[in-house]
Structure formats: structure tokens, C-alpha cells
């Protein structure tokens, strides 16, 4: 059998039902195999769109996403999604074509050192050197991508090797002696953590993207007492919002309540979170009174940025139930948290998320998110791009469960939202999938509307159109003396015409009074829809911890 046909068998054995890609010379053999392999292949219009679509698919379903590109420019176009998946721990396998082995190292046509270029931004990568390696390598790639802390794996396949004939035998096990992620938390540490919790008077649970598959376990722990919970941008939905113990998101554009609670906490339980600078702000002033329990499957995250007092390495799904049991056994005095909660309640009362609405019919961007929440009944899978609209979406759309909020957190990749929505919709055909896009960001991967039209992928894209690279404009306004250098995008393009040209439905909404109704109409329209929502041009995302400052310095 040809190695590429074996490759198709491996993909099927891994449960792959869809891949996103674009062919070229070096992966022609693979594409020949796709012709009748019985695996759905979605032809994207740019490899980056395919990579982000695979991310959206993986984030929405929890399964490994697969994305393909040819050698050279095909592979370099995948660099952004690879890096994005690395930063946000998304399980992905990238299959890149490579020039024939005799051309390797000769600067052959469309040769790029894909393994070298991507080395710093992959969980692991494989260069195929012999056709017989293909099946085993593929299974190893999937195993690495999905286990431990998930991440992207690149498999680079020279075209002559992929068309070689090999005897194919299904591979039933992988052998990776240097790769053994720890999943079981240490019992002694868990016990110590329970004791610390029982003695804490101002505890906070701070949960990140690592907790999306342990949401019910998180809720059990939090409600074993009245532990206040905050999530990072990546963790939203892991704790159901709204909820009486929910403080809102923390970090640069988090709620004052969440940030103040971190600031005054005596014990912080970090779960699947990595103390990114957008969370800590000025690190020397971050949570100055707190001791830290840090639970993470990646030991390298523990004490990387903030030294942990009780480190626990392992899978949150394994650790949290045991921690809850240990905690319950201590029958701690629940009343000890009353003072803490009354403090929190003061902040909640004094500093709710707010904005100044207008009554002249203008659509405030925050209101746009609230309207979309209402129009979708809070029940959609929401993807977003990067910028102000992303932060407002995170603030004003309440996510009741994980894998409903899909965005680019670590890398902050403009152009992520639309293709990610496409992938999420393919993975969850029965759900409403909406993308909250920026007018700047959406132009970076708008070409995938053609893919959506051709494949009948009915995503609903709502562009928060402020005519600006808004988040940059905000920084220029606040920190650069209002010198608006190259952030005004004016009236271009005409998104309704763009939608039309791509075979999608275009709409333009400017009226606040009918916004919810109009959004419902857009959601009810079959096929892909691109909605240009005109919002207040110069509005700032608040509250905000200016970069490099502390929670106490929140403005707005």
C-alpha cells in the first residue's frame, strides 16, 4: 500500500472525521489519497485559515484538529496557527508536505526548513526519513498532541516518501520513553492543600484554560465551601456564569472584584493557569499577601513566574475530586469566610462592569455584546478575534459551560475568529456558532467565507465595526498622547458587498432599538452570514490594569 494510504488508515484509526487543508506539489500524494479515503477534507482558501479552523474544531470538541499544507509557503502560512495552538495548548496535528529527499538542503523549489522554523513553537515535531516510519509517527503525533498539556505537533513528510509502497500493519501502541506526563497528583500535597484551604480566611480559586475538561470537578471543589472563583480569559465557562461565587474574569480587563480579591487574598488556588503577565501585571506587587497552591499538568509552569507554596503536578480531573474529598473531611468552619464575602460584596456593589449608554440610538460596543447574548439566549459557541471587541465579549457574554468561548489568548492572533468559528461549526453542526469579529481582525482571514459558502458552514459573523484598530487606538489615546498613528481604517471595505461576493448573506445594523431583533433575524438566516454592526467609534475597554502596573492601579 502507498504510505499515504496507510496515513489515511492511521487518521481513521485516530478518529479523525475532518481535516482542513490546501494542496500543492509536495503533498500531491496525500491529496491523491484524500480523493477516496472517506475522510472529510475542507478546502480552505489560506493555510492559516485551515490552521485556525482546526484550532476552533479542537477547542469546541476537545478532539485533535488536523490541518494540512504543502511545503515552503504552505508550511510557513501555518506558522501563526501552530504558534497560536502552542500558546493556548490546543491539540493539533499539522501535516506538511516537504520536497523530495534528494532535494533536501539544496534550496529546492518550495523548500523551507519547516522543522527548523517551527521548532520553538511546537510541542513536538517529526521529520519523516523513511516511509516505514509514517504510521507509527502519526500515532505518536496524535498521542503527544492530545495527552498531558495538549499542543501542536508537526509531521513533515517528503513527497517521495509519501508515495512509496509499504507493508501496512495497524499500530496499536506508541513508544515514547522520553514522554510520560504525570497525571496523578501527589496525595501528600493534596492533603496539605486541603489543610491550607481549611485555614484560609481569604481564599480565591483562579482557574485557567487547563480546567476546561474539569469544570464539574471545579464546581464541586468551589461549592464544597463558598470559595470565590475567577477565571482567566482562557478558562471562561469552566465555572458557570452567572453564579453567586463567580467574581468574573481577572487580569488586565478583568473585573475590579476579581482583581481586588486576588490582591487581598491570603490563599490562591491556581488551577491550569500560568500566571501570564496579563494576569499578574507588575509581578512584584501581584497578590502580595497570598500563598499559592498551584495545580498544573505541566511541571514547568509551576514556580515559573510566581513561586508556589504547594505545587501539585497532575491532571485537574484527577486532583480536584481528591482535593474536594480531603477538604470535606476536615469539616472546616464555613463561617470563617463571611468577612471575606462581605468584603467581596462591597466591591461587587461598588464596581460592577458598567458603561455609559446613550439614548440617541447609537450602538455602544458593550451593548452589542449584551444584545448578542440576548439574541442567542446565551447558548451559542462564541469565537472572537483580538482587540477591544474580544475583551468586551469576555466581559459581557456569560458562558455557562466550557468550550463555548473560543479565542486566541496567549498569542492574541487577529484573524483567528472567523476560521475558528468555521472549524467549531464543522465540529458542532447542531450548535449556533457566532464569531464576534473586529473590523480589523476579520480582514485577516475573511477569505474563509468562500469556504463556508461552498461547504454550507452556517457561521454567523458579527463584526464590531468601529473603523479602528480599536485596542491600539485605545493605547494611543491613554498612553501616547492621543497620537492616533495608523489605526484609522475608515469605511473600507464594504462588508455587505464582501459577503455578497463570497456567497454569504451580508447585513448592516446601526439601530440600537432594533438590534436584538435584527440579530435574531441574522441568526435565523440559513448559511453563512456576515453582519456589519456599526458601533461607537471611540470607546475604551474598561476597567483596565495598565501594562506593568498592579491590580490596585486599575483605571476606568
Amino acid at each position: 500500500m502507498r504510505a499515504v494510504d496507510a496515513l489515511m488508515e492511521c487518521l481513521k484509526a485516530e478518529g479523525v472525521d475532518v481535516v482542513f487543508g490546501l494542496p500543492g506539489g509536495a503533498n500531491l500524494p496525500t491529496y491523491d489519497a484524500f480523493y477516496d479515503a472517506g475522510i472529510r477534507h475542507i478546502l480552505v482558501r489560506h493555510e492559516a485559515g485551515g490552521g485556525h479552523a482546526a484550532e476552533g474544531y479542537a477547542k469546541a470538541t476537545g478532539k485533535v484538529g488536523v490541518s494540512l499544507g504543502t511545503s515552503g509557503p504552505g508550511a510557513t502560512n501555518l506558522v501563526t496557527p501552530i504558534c497560536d495552538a502552542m500558546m493556548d495548548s490546543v491539540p493539533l496535528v499539522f501535516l506538511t508536505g516537504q520536497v523530495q529527499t534528494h532535494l533536501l538542503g539544496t534550496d529546492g523549489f518550495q523548500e523551507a526548513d519547516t522543522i527548523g522554523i517551527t521548532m520553538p513553537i511546537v510541542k513536538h515535531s517529526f521529520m519523516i526519513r523513511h516511509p516505514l516510519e509514517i504510521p507509527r509517527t502519526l500515532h505518536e503525533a496524535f498521542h503527544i498532541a492530545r495527552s498531558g498539556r495538549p499542543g501542536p505537533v508537526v509531521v513533515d513528510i517528503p513527497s517521495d516518501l509519501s508515495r512509496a509502497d509499504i507493508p501496512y500493519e495497524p499500530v496499536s501502541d506508541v513508544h515514547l520513553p522520553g514522554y510520560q506526563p504525570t497525571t496523578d497528583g501527589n496525595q501528600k500535597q493534596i492533603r496539605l492543600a486541603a489543610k491550607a484551604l481549611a485555614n484560609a480566611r481569604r481564599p480565591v480559586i483562579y482557574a485557567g484554560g487547563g480546567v476546561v475538561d474539569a469544570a464539574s470537578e471545579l464546581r464541586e471543589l468551589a461549592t464544597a465551601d463558598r470559595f470565590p472563583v475567577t477565571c482567566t480569559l482562557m478558562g471562561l465557562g469552566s465555572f458557570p456564569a452567572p453564579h453567586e461565587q463567580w467574581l468574573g474574569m481577572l487580569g488586565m480587563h478583568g473585573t475590579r472584584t476579581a482583581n481586588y480579591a486576588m490582591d487581598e487574598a491570603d490563599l490562591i488556588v491556581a488551577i491550569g493557569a500560568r500566571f501570564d503577565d496579563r494576569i499578574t501585571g507588575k509581578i512584584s506587587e501581584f497578590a502580595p499577601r497570598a500563598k499559592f497552591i498551584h495545580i498544573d499538568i505541566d511541571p514547568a509552569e509551576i514556580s515559573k513566574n510566581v513561586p508556589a507554596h504547594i505545587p501539585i503536578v497532575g491532571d485537574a480531573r484527577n486532583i480536584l475530586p481528591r482535593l474536594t474529598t480531603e477538604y470535606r473531611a476536615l469539616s472546616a468552619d464555613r463561617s470563617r469566610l463571611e468577612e471575606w464575602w462581605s468584603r467581596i460584596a462591597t466591591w461587587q456593589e461598588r464596581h460592577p462592569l458598567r458603561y455609559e449608554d446613550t439614548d440617541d440610538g447609537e450602538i455602544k460596543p458593550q451593548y452589542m455584546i449584551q444584545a448578542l447574548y440576548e439574541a442567542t439566549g446565551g447558548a451559542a459557541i462564541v469565537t472572537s478575534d483580538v482587540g477591544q471587541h474580544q475583551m468586551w465579549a469576555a466581559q459581557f457574554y456569560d458562558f455557562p459551560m466550557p468550550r463555548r468561548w473560543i479565542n486566541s489568548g496567549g498569542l492574541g492572533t487577529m484573524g483567528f475568529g472567523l476560521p475558528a468559528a468555521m472549524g467549531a461549526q464543522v465540529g458542532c453542526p447542531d450548535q449556533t456558532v457566532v464569531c464576534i469579529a473586529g473590523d480589523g481582525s476579520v480582514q485577516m482571514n475573511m477569505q474563509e467565507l468562500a469556504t463556508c459558502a461552498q461547504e454550507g458552514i452556517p457561521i454567523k459573523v458579527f463584526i464590531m465595526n468601529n473603523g479602528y484598530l480599536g485596542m491600539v487606538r485605545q493605547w494611543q489615546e491613554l498612553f501616547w498622547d492621543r497620537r492616533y498613528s495608523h489605526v484609522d481604517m475608515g469605511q473600507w471595505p464594504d462588508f455587505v458587498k464582501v459577503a455578497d461576493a463570497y456567497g454569504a448573506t451580508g447585513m448592516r445594523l446601526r439601530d440600537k432599538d432594533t438590534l436584538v431583533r435584527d440579530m435574531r433575524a441574522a441568526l435565523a438566516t440559513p448559511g453563512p452570514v456576515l453582519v456589519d454592526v456599526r458601533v461607537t467609534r471611540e470607546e475604551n475597554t474598561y476597567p483596565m490594569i495598565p501594562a506593568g502596573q498592579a491590580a490596585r492601579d486599575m483605571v476606568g
Partner: protein
Amino acid sequence: MTPVGEPATQEVLSLDDLNAAVGLRTGRKHVLAILVENKPGVLTRITGLFARRGFNIDTLAVGPTDDETVSRITLTLDGAVAPIDQVTKQLHKLVNVLKIRDLDPGEMLARELAMFKVSADGAARAEVMQICEIFRAKVVDVTKRSLVLEVTGTCDKVDAFEALVRPFGLIEMARTGEIAISRGRAET
């Protein structure tokens, strides 16, 4: 830290008793013995990791082991500059890294090989040879106006040797960087 009691006891543990487990800088030199899969690109993954994370490598030596599928890397770095704990954890994340030992300074034998080319004629020559004798260094090449000296030993010994021969006119030198192994029967 107060000892941890049995679960379900009501013994109080004060949060004040908790200490962060990890000191970020140890302040001393570390010698890491790293066993890796002998595959193309593995060294690049390691050096790339160091460069990317801003960890400074002092010396690096790579060679085969008794198992042809495994290579051994000896890497020395300064624990005053590099967060050793973080370095080893990041190294462990590389799929091709099989084992890492941060060798205990009291329990290891470390050696480096160095070659020095010095200009030495007439009276100077005898003096250089005397230094060699003290350091058990060998003269491996002689011309009318130069000597090539070979010395092995710990990094400190080689440093000392270098300091002594340099004044005679050091033309060039080559050092391998340390390799190290643990004392006693047990495998590193």
C-alpha cells in the same frame, strides 16, 4: 514547615508556615548530565530552548553512550544566572530527552580536555615544561618556537594551567568543556 497531620484531624496549619518550595537561583555552578535520543535535530532542540528562554550555557559536550540509540550531553551552567529548576523542567518537556541528572558537586567526577599552543623558545621552554609536569600535562607537539600542550582535569585546574602558561605567549587554545560522571557503583 509544620508537619502534616493525618486527614480529617482538626490540627491547625497556619498559612504563615507555608514556604515557597523553590529558590529561583542557587548561586552555584551546575553540571547537568542529559541522556537524549540519538536522533537528528535533538541538539538543536536543546540549544534552541536555552537561547529562547535566555538560559546561558557555559559549556556543552556531546558524545555517544554504551547504547547507540542514546547520546549523552554534559552541560554546565551558572545557577546564579539561570533558574536551574526551570531549566531542567523545560528540558524534560522535550520529548527526546530521556533523563536529566543535576550532578551533586561532592559526588561527581568532572574532567575537561584542553590544548594550548604557546610560543616558547630557549629558557622559556624549560619553564613551561616544568609547569606541565606539575599539572601532569603532556607536550604533544614541538617546533622551534612553539609547543602544543595537552591537559586534562576539572575546569578549575584547566583555568589555573591556562593562567600560568598564558604569559609565555598563548597562540591559541581549545577546550572541550567538562564531561562528568557520578562516583561509586550507581548509574548516573
